[in-house]
């Protein structure tokens, strides 16, 4: 390579860098951009982020500043949503947020016309005492407009906001830059399907050395909502940061969090956690009575869980830190998650059990992938037994040992021992939550049906049933049931409504006039009647995220049908079944016809709470086959 070609290639590289860099600067709107009618990679997009750049600079003194530059293209009216923008601010600190260079660009008669945002389009909403919102409304936005603005936030604490590369619209380029002095140690974690490019250089801030790191991603597709998803944020490409320690040679060094052990230790040492857990005097007298006669661990666990469930109400707030403290919660008979479950743990310990708190991230909070303090927002209790951990959560009044409310079932939790050491605990239920239904009915000459059914529900199914029917008047419940199933119900009864250790049982008699179709003198009916599943919940063609059932389950039915005199079975759904690979699930349909009687036994069982997206097609086919079978008809004809 000659010297000349080197120069040329350097120039070329410089030019290409330059042109590329230009694309991601504010104020460089082109006619071509304004003329663009649809997004090149997603013609359905209502709007797109042409770029979204964020930056956080941490200063030596321990505060931070952040910047954001956004350029949005609006393709359709539905994209007008993106012409209003809001940002949370600390109450009273609204002047720290400054919006500049905010323009709307339009193409008018082949010329670029820009309109700037004036103060009349900026608002401070004093939402409540905890946070305010800065809102801007961009002027003169139409189909085809481009919107740009620059947002600067001063004087923020030593803190870096989470950054999402992906949005619900396509993002052409997203970049997040951090400048962090060497003395501050931040932990970063990535999530989502796309991994950013990372580039680091040494930077200077007021004399001390710092590291400037840029995370960038290009051409990100829009995030799409799907059903049966745990929390879509788990799959959105993003980066988050958490302060891990301060390191000034010779002065001090403190690890705030870092690995899981130090995170849990930090939490454990918080007054609102560890100290609260140690308190016992407030309940001792009462608890002695409760565990007086209880000998075995199981008995003690049940009695204590039940005691907390019935006496302390959950106020709906999640946290691993107490708010008013366990003592006050006990007196006032209500508290947040920490107050209730730390109290529960303390009581279990007092009763001589090896009980420990388990830190959890709720479904709403997302999966705790990387060690940091914000990874958790909830706490439950665990009792170590020879058969493994028994997980407990007293915030739900119908929960049971090892049957947690759904909000708390989110991958893994961290159990903290008295010593401060911790270990991972699998929260995903392994045990099948069963439901067993038996039904027998008689068909009369006119095709009318009368029969009896009994449904037993276990574990999660029981919790769901109890929560759903709690406080609902029986009349109302039955009316709904009758309407959806087109039957009339009589002799309805429930057993073990409050006895959480026993299965919840529903029994009833029913009569239905419209369950059998009579066509040309023949009777047609679905043998499972109203228990048959008639539509596939998985209607999507493709799947991006895992399907989350919450818990593994099985549904069993035994059905006995008495056909009317003078009729015989012309055809009936034959025995068949579906087995999914990797023991994911099984469907069995067994039918026997015997002297005017038809007997069926049906099993629908899903063995894993979470089904990965790769198995979606198989799961969909499974449901398809099951529904086809369950909707197959019995045909009866006159002898």
């Amino acid at each position: 390579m000659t010297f000349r070609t080197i120069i040329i290639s350097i120039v070329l590289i410089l030019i290409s860098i330059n042109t590329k860099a230009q694309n991601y600067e504010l104020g460089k709107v082109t006619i071509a951009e304004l003329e663009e009618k649809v997004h090149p990679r997603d013609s359905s997009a209502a709007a797109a982020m042409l770029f979204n750049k964020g930056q956080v600079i941490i200063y030596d003194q321990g505060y931070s500043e952040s910047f954001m530059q956004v350029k949005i293209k609006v393709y359709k009216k539905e994209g007008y949503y993106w012409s209003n923008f809001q940002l949370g601010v600390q109450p009273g600190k609204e002047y720290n947020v400054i919006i500049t260079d905010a323009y709307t660009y339009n193409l008018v008669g082949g010329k670029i016309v820009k309109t700037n945002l004036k103060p009349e389009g900026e608002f401070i909403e004093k939402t409540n005492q905890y946070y305010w919102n800065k809102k801007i409304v961009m002027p003169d936005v139409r189909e085809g407009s481009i919107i740009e603005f620059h947002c600067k936030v001063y004087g923020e604490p030593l803190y870096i906001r989470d950054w999402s590369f992906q949005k619900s619209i396509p993002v052409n380029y997203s970049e997040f830059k951090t400048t962090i002095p060497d003395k501050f140690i931040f932990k970063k974690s990535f999530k989502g399907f796309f991994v950013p490019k990372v580039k680091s250089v040494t930077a200077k801030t007021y004399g001390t050395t710092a590291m400037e790191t840029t995370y960038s991603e290009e051409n990100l597709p829009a995030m799409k909502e799907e059903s049966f998803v745990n929390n879509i944020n788990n799959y959105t490409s993003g980066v988050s940061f958490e302060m891990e320690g301060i390191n000034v040679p010779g002065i001090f060094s403190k690890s705030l969090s870092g690995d899981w052990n130090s995170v849990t230790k930090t939490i454990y040492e918080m007054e609102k956690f560890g100290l609260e857990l140690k308190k016992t005097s407030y309940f001792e007298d009462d608890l002695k009575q409760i565990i007086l006669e209880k000998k075995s661990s199981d008995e003690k666990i049940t009695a204590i869980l039940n005691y907390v469930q019935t006496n302390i109400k959950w106020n709906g707030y999640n946290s691993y830190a107490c708010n008013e403290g366990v003592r006050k919660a006990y007196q006032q008979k209500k508290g947040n998650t920490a107050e209730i479950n730390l109290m529960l743990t303390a009581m279990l310990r007092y009763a001589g059990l090896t009980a420990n708190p388990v830190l959890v991230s709720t479904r709403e909070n997302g999966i705790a992938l990387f060690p940091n303090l914000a990874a958790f927002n909830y706490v439950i209790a665990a009792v170590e037994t020879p058969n493994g951990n028994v997980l407990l959560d007293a915030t739900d009044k119908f929960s049971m040992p090892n049957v947690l409310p759904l909000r708390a079932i989110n991958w893994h939790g961290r159990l903290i021992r008295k010593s401060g050491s911790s270990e991972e605990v699998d929260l995903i239920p392994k045990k099948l939550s069963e439901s067993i239904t038996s039904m027998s009915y008689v068909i009369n000459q006119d095709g009318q049906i009368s029969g009896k059914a009994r449904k037993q529900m276990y574990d999660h199914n029981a919790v769901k049933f109890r929560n759903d029917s709690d406080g609902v008047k029986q009349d109302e419940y039955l009316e709904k049931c009758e309407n959806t199933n087109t039957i009339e119900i009589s002799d309805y009864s429930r057993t073990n409504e409050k006895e959480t250790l026993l299965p919840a049982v529903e029994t009833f008699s029913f009569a239905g006039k419209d369950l059998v179709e009579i066509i040309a003198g023949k009777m047609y009916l679905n043998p499972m009647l109203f228990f048959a599943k008639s539509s596939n919940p998985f209607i999507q063609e493709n799947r991006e995220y895992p399907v989350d059932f919450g818990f593994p389950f099985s549904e069993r039915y035994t059905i006995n049908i008495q056909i009317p005199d003078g009729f015989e079975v012309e055809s009936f759904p034959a025995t068949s079944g579906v087995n999914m690979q990797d023991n994911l699930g099984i469907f069995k349909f067994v039918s026997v016809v015997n002297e005017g009687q038809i007997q069926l036994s049906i099993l629908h069982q899903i063995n894993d709470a979470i089904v990965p997206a790769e198995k979606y097609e198989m799961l969909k086919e499974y449901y398809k086959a099951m529904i086809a079978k369950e909707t197959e008809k019995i045909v009866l004809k006159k002898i």
Partner: protein
Amino acid sequence: MKNQVSVLFFFLFFLVSTAQKSQYPTTIIADSLKENANAVVRLDQMDITIASQRSMNIKKQRVVSVFNEKGLRDIDAYQHYDKTTSIKNIEAIVYDAFGNEIKKIKKKDFRDQSAVDGSTLFSDNRVVYLDYTPVSYPFTIVYTSETETSNTAFIPQWYFLGGYYVSVEKCVLNVTFPNNLGFKKKEFQFSEFKIKKTADTDTRLSYEAMNILAQKAEDLSPSSRDLYPRIMMGLERFHLEGVDGEATNWIDFGKWYSDKILTGTIDLPESTKIKIKGIIGDEKDPIKKAKLVYDFVQKKSRYVSIQVGIGGWKPMLASDVDRLGYGDCKALSNYTKALLQAVDVPSYNTILYGDRYKSNIQSDFVSMQGNHMILAVPNGDNYTFLECTSQDDPFGYQGTFTDDRDVLVVKPEGAVIVRTKIYEDKGNTQTDKGSYSIDENGNLSGHISIVSEGSQYSSKSRTETLQPTEKDTHYKEYWSNINNLKLGKITFANDKQNIRFTEDVQVSAMNYGVVSANKIIFPVDAFNQNKSNIKRIRNRKNPFQIQRGYLDTDEIEINLPVGFSIEFLPSNFELKGKFGEYRTEIIKKENNKLTYKRSMFLNKGKYSNKEYDEYRLFMEQVSRNDNAKIILTKN
């Protein structure tokens, strides 16, 4: 005499001994009040004192016994405030079932937050509310508040019964007012409830009601506003955000509104006037001009709701809308009016209740009413109404949000009450044409064209704006009767000129026909099954209403698989009654072809509770026949 003393003594003693207790233990509530009730309002009292045209004080006292979680929403312990309405005092005390005090909640323990609903971007209205987690049920809350405001244009309406599944033990309204402000009232639905008027003079009005039983919510009922007793109140001389007003009739009201609220809001920059005149060109016809202006506004503006001070009532300046390109319903209507004025087309701000449920402006009660604004353009003897917040609606289309109701058209020379456009049942059409084939395994493939007009246009045309995944979900829900549905090509034609929306959809589905032994069974009507599930309601109490009728007609070609013969074909069916007409017909053609024809016409109307079962049976027969199946047997 001796007896009297002891009674008195006993009474005193009783009072003393219970001084620390509330007089509202839940144990003494009559059983009849507890029936169907999640909560019982023991006392609901409002004392309104209007001191002058610019001063109104409202004291509320609400004692509610809550029996379960659902009853929590009947506590209603919240108070709105803003720059002109201040909360002087707000407090609550909680008692247990026996009337022992559990907790006192002071003003500072209430939550204070910005009161914006989902569609409003910014408002200076705020709300203070109680967030209480009960320890156990039942319990009783005694809530009291006092507010003061200079706005007397709105005197709160008084509802004797606040909702469903809640009963009221005692309800009291006291209003005092100077005799020179022209206080007036209107009573609604008093007849079936025993409401006592305890005072009605030129300075005082009082009502009392006892023991109103809990009501159940029933489908298709009129709004509770139109079922249960309430009172509207107003002043002829009132005050609104710094502006005095006086109106005894709609003429005065219209003049006041034009002079004080609308004046000076419709000036436009010259450049915009020139631009709009350029767009109009030589067009002379006012309606055609209005159409061009409406199109201009739709392309230029978007809906953003910002409500600050008088801005809650007074439209933003038209020149600001022109510059910013956004505004709320008042701003956008007013802007359109300004543009129309620039091209010499008169138009009028129109106040109404915007809702799918049709509600009228009370024509015999002159006062500030309504929650929405549209624009009326005179068109012959009538008006064309423009919904200026929509960027998609066809010109003059009123869909289901502003149709068929009394509205107030505000003219500078006085306001008038006008009925908006009525969409006739027979014009609310959906016309389906298509075909499908069934193969020997019961699989379906076909295509259909759906043309929607009248009020059906409004729901269908929205499909056009859906994202691909939403569109997929929409059709899979629309045809939930077809399992394993797969959508092929979907195209839309939105004819805004004739207000007609056309969907062309290709579909296929595995196992549409259920194969049992050597038979295939499937419902003939694949594409337009009646979906209205009319619930059985025992002892229905409320009348019911069908707000909008419609006419659906379908004509579908069906190709049956070769090698099969028809074992059974549903017979033709016809149903006629006061609710409508329904008809299906299957015509057999050669080569295993069928033609399926269906028409369903539903009348709008108001019916008594007694007729409900009849309606349910009518719809049930329709559903059953829509589901009628064909049976094929293999040759």
